[in-house]
């Protein structure tokens, strides 16, 4: 029994009941992503343009697990929106599999911090939503929803409604809903930030396993450095406004990793020291904006 399981006995139990391995038919081919000289800025009322992202050059390999850390306000989320096609860069280009992103697509699914599940649908219908929009038949939808609910250990909750689930369960439904469209890229925007530590540890294990089973490219945004080191095969540190890439670190620690692994802690420390500088800049800049009487 792992420490994470000891820490969350109930969750661990459900992990044991569910089969350890799934015969998952995941057809999607993981995608590579390329950002070139990406800049995004907004016109703020009565002020200079706010530059959220500046001069971002980034290559993400197919099947990579990339974690992005940075102080709040560094444009991490904007970066995900650009790749998701929910927003467009002011300058520069975003390519997914060598094609310019022109809009949202079910090959790139975003998972939000607040799950964004639809409360008027059951868990099963939520998972089927993307497939419904893709025009898949009811039978296929049903079958696949079942499969992905099993993947996140929520089979048996198909007919529940979102308000009946705990925070951790909701986030797992969101993961199942995202995966059910078989995206080649999974974009995660601080998905576990609102969860308690035990649930988060368990979801780290699940996400790592899902990443292995599906092989999809994951871009995971977080402000938790240790989480980034625990999960990522590469960690990118962004600067405070304008968001640029400050440094990056390949994480070659063996998997499955653990949050309390001293090697994880050590690497996290390194990143954290750099992050602190950026956080201090963020704090200083916010103090500057306090109106003086």
């Amino acid at each position, binding site marked *: 029994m792992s420490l994470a399981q000891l820490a969350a006995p109930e969750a661990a139990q459900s992990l044991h009941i569910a089969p350890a391995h799934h015969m998952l038919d995941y057809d999607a081919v993981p995608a590579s992503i390329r950002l070139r000289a990406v800049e995004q800025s907004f016109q703020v009322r009565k002020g200079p343009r706010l530059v959220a992202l500046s001069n971002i050059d980034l290559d993400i390999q197919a099947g990579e697990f990339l974690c992005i850390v940075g102080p709040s306000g560094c444009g991490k989320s904007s970066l995900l929106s650009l790749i998701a096609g929910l927003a467009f860069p002011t300058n520069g280009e975003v390519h997914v599999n060598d094609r310019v992103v022109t809009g949202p697509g079910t090959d790139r699914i975003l998972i939000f911090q607040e799950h964004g599940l*639809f*409360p008027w649908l059951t868990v099963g219908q939520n998972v089927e939503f*993307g497939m419904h*929009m893709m025009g898949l038949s009811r039978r296929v939808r049903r079958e696949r929803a079942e499969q992905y609910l099993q993947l996140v250990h929520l089979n048996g909750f198909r007919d529940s409604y979102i308000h009946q689930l705990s925070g951790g369960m909701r986030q797992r439904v969101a993961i199942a809903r995202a995966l059910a469209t078989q995206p080649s890229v999974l974009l995660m925007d601080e998905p576990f930030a609102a969860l308690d530590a035990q649930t988060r540890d368990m979801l780290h294990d699940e996400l790592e396993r899902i990443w292995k089973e599906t092989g999809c490219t994951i871009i995971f945004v977080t402000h938790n450095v240790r989480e980034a080191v625990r999960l990522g095969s590469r960690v990118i540190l962004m600067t405070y406004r304008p968001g640029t890439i400050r440094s990056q670190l390949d994480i070659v620690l063996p998997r499955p990793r653990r949050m309390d692994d001293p090697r994880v802690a050590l690497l996290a420390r390194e990143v954290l020291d750099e992050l602190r500088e950026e956080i201090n800049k963020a704090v200083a800049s916010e103090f500057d904006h306090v109106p003086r009487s």
Partner: protein
Amino acid sequence: MSRVLKNLIFYGSILGAWVLLTHAKIWPPYLFPAPLSVWQSLQAGFADHSFWVAIGVSMRRVVIGYGLAVAMGMALGFGIAASRFLEQTVAPLLTSLQSLPSICWLPLAMLWFGLSEKAIYFVIIAGSVLSITISMESGRHAIPRIYSQAGRNLGAHGWRLFVYVLLPASLPHLVSGLKQGWAFAWRALVSGEMIVAGLGLGQLLMVGRDSNDMSMVLAVMLVIILLGWAIDGLIFRNVEGWFNRRWGLGATS
């Protein structure tokens, strides 16, 4: 102390005070009737079917009027949602019109339609259509952005985004708009009936006044209160509560 007991004591003491006041004979009984005579008026009204007829007529009017108001209010709401032009022109007009009490439409309705059913429907619609449209409009803006983002991200766009995401997301607001519209329709109905129409609860109030029958007036008021409360409290509040729970908006989730 349980809630029921508290309310028993509360209403019991009101009734007690009422009885004591009538026994004190401060005011003549034709101005301040005893609870018992109000109760007798109530019984008599239901026994000779005049109350039942009035309830039937009033309910029919309010159902038709409110039904039309819902249809028009929703059509207007969708129109405003779909057109930026309407949103910037009609919506502010509606908001300013809402400050007009619905009874103010009555003189206009009487000139246009005379003392007819049409005038009543007009007042009911004028009273409730605005609040339905306005709450649809404000509900649409209160939809969390995350729903449309998630919907678009999962491949919904155009009318499918509207039907499968935006519309269901706005249902709780729509329901509270309908509830508010109902309350306005009910008020408009009674005030309209008092002046315009033959039959109906409002008219019954005026019959009581004309015949100096205070206990009948109070009995009809009781009927109006109970009916309004029953529909608002038992139907609308439950539906609204159900939506808020399911949509995760309520305090108890």
